């Protein structure tokens, strides 16, 4: 296989899968069929796909409006409807889409026949209440308890873990009952196992892909390329197409690692990203770093926004429901830890990924991922000698994105990195 066949394949295939996905959603919308609205942190695709329910990810729909530079139209419409400028931009963009009967830049969105949400983000809960009011659809709040105290995770066998696991398993069984009612279909345990098998393949591959970015040069940009992979990881979880895509992705990344093929950036600085991307200037934001030789080799976004599937948890197909309960608990809890304790994971990465710096990017729209970042950064600075940059902007609202001051700060950050490197060279 030649370089041109394999290098960049995941980005091409990912874009095609996305187009296919939105085509399916448009067909569902036009045909009036049921769909399930879900979220990235614990989509429960494993259950929903076993009922062949098309899944709609409102977060992905919303961020698409920002990437396509039309988010402001949606935000304004929701604000005119009554929503505050100070709430989650994803929610507002979706409210406007609902008011527009599913109109979206990539197609048409079906109405929710069912909404399933976890508590990984509280706004999920408020958001689903909006659909409940607008559409009268059933909503299922899937409660997955997280870590009670930093570093205090419990594991199977511990009474507290088992209390959580029983709760999650009970809810799984209740969700299955609800899906049976909504679809009019009986739960098929064999189909469920098949879906879990695909999810296992994807999770294992996702973990492997993230680890492969230890390579020098890094084999993908965690901020840009990684977001494409992440989209597939969410939308196609539990499907054969998704598992195949990730198998190919591993092949591509291994090929690149073996042949010393990096990203388009001439890699001088290896960076970790903490937070949610700046979608209103998605490419430009990345260029602020790549033009100075910086590339993002890791991103907490790829962990929490994949619902913690980066852990690579493997379901035991011999006891599928019990194992899914355990996997959800461990994975979604990990996603929450990635948001609330990012410094813990980043600390481990400093050596493993040869990090030169860390970019914290709190956004106005998302308090879940942003509230603790300043404090997390302080903790990181106390524990490790790694420079960091703190850039505040937004994931949706271009009114809150000030590119010029942002560029000044990024430039100063790189000057600082260069100065450190020179000082280190002199010291040697």
């Amino acid at each position, binding site marked *: 296989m030649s370089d041109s066949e394999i290098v960049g394949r995941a980005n091409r295939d990912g874009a095609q899968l996305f187009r296919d996905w939105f085509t399916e959603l448009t067909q569902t919308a036009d045909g009036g069929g049921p769909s399930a609205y879900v979220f990235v942190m614990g989509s429960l695709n494993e259950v929903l796909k076993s009922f062949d329910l098309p899944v709609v990810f409102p977060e992905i729909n919303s961020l698409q409006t920002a990437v396509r530079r039309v988010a402001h139209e949606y935000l304004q419409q929701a604000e005119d409807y009554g929503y505050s400028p100070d709430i989650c931009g994803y929610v507002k963009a979706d409210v406007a889409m609902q008011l527009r009967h599913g109109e979206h830049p990539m197609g048409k969105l079906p109405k929710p026949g069912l909404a399933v949400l976890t508590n990984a983000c509280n706004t999920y809960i408020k958001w689903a209440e909006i659909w409940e009011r607008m559409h009268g659809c059933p909503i299922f709040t899937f409660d997955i308890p997280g870590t009670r105290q930093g570093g205090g995770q419990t594991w199977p066998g511990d009474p507290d873990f088992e209390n959580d696991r029983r*709760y999650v398993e009970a809810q799984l069984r209740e969700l299955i009952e609800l899906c049976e009612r909504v679809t009019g279909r009986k739960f098929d345990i064999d189909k469920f196992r098949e879906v879990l098998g695909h999810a296992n393949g994807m999770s294992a591959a996702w973990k492997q892909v993230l680890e492969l970015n230890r390579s020098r040069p890094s084999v993908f940009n965690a901020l840009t390329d990684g977001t494409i992979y992440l989209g597939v990881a969410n939308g196609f979880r539990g499907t054969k197409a998704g598992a195949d895509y990730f198998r190919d992705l591993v092949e591509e990344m291994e090929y690149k690692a073996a042949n010393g093929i990096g990203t388009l950036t001439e890699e001088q600085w290896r960076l970790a990203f903490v937070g949610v991307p700046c979608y209103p200037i998605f490419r430009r934001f990345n260029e602020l770093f790549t033009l100075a030789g910086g590339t993002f080799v890791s991103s907490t976004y790829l962990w929490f926004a994949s619902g913690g599937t980066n852990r690579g948890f493997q379901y035991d197909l011999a006891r599928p429901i019990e194992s899914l309960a355990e996997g959800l608990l461990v994975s979604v809890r990990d996603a929450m830890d990635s948001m609330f304790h990012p410094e813990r994971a980043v600390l481990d990465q400093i050596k493993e990924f040869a990090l030169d710096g860390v970019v914290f990017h709190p956004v106005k729209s998302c308090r879940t991922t942003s509230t603790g970042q300043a404090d997390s950064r302080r903790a990181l600075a106390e524990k490790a000698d790694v420079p960091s940059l703190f850039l505040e902007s937004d994931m949706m609202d271009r009114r809150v994105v000030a590119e010029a001051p942002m560029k000044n700060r990024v430039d100063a950050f790189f000057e600082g990195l260069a100065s450190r490197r020179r000082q280190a060279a002199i010291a040697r």
Partner: protein
Amino acid sequence: MIVFPDWSNRPLDAALAECRDLVEDTTFPTVRRWREGGGKVAGHFQVYFPEEIVHAAGMLPFKVRGAPLEPTRADSHFGSYLCSILKTSLEAVLTGAVKMELFVSHPICDAARNLAAIWGRNFSHPCQILYLPQNPNSRHSVAYLRGEYDRMRRTVESVAERKIADDDLRRSIAVFNENRRLLRELYEIKRETPWLVSAEDAYSLVAAGGLIPREEHNELLRTLLPQIRARARKSEDRVRVVFEGGFCEQPPLDLVRVLGRMCYLVDDDFLIGLRYLTADVPAGKDPLRDLAESYVERSTYSPVQHDLRKPKEKMLLERVRGARAGAVIVAAAKMCEPGLDEQVAYSKALDLEGIPYFLVEFEENMTSFEGVELQVETFLENLLFA
């Protein structure tokens, strides 16, 4: 040990003034006295928390609800676009204004759910999340919560360095049941004879409960409520108003005073976490289960609690009807996402019912009230002279 003797044996107005002073005192003198007497403190962030478990261990449950402070030191621990209560709560501890042996928050909102992590990085005492069930509609939620309360019991035991027996819990439940009854009585006075107690005094009487041992709070209420009932005051021609939006960050007492001067605040959700169980907790065979079942089945709604059986706009309408209110002040703390989200649902529901409402944002640190006063006054005059 008595930590709030200031009101005792004083005339009613003087006693109420002491309560107002206590609530506005950012040095938290009652907590300090408790600690000086050798007591331990468990701070629990808004909204819901089973204080009975802490009380049963002989510790003081302290309601962490921010304070009218400048977050000089806490500011650097947070980014922008956040509500004030997060910062001032941390400020109070960073500056040593209040000290505690345990801090517990629960995931009421996206911002607050970060608190246990933030506090945990800055203090050596345990800083935990209590995961109350966010799917109370699950058939398993009571059993789960019973287990989670048991975990909290073990945590408190290790901090208090003593065991909590079921009988300890039953005794605490009895103390809190009396407190709930007395607070219901206070709210009955607000609803039925609002001219007998000003809005700020009613507020202060409730808020004191988060700062002193509940036995003392019970004594305070037992003494003052009959005196309030016995007041010789006449009803005035004022609009009966419900205030909604005080479930977490609190409006400054001055704002409550300003509002109370213009209308009768006949019901509200101020400090709802101090009175979130709407009925007595049965003191049965398994007190932890009783507490868990009470939370799932008989706790009050708020924008940070999701229960399919309790759509919030329907619950607000019930509150309005129950209080025979003619209008609603639908408030939200600045940058409070759940409060701001709910303003939309509330206003749409009130529109449908033809109930007048006034939307407002506030901040615990606000010091200027002229603008709000003018707007609310105009709103109320329009109703009175419609």
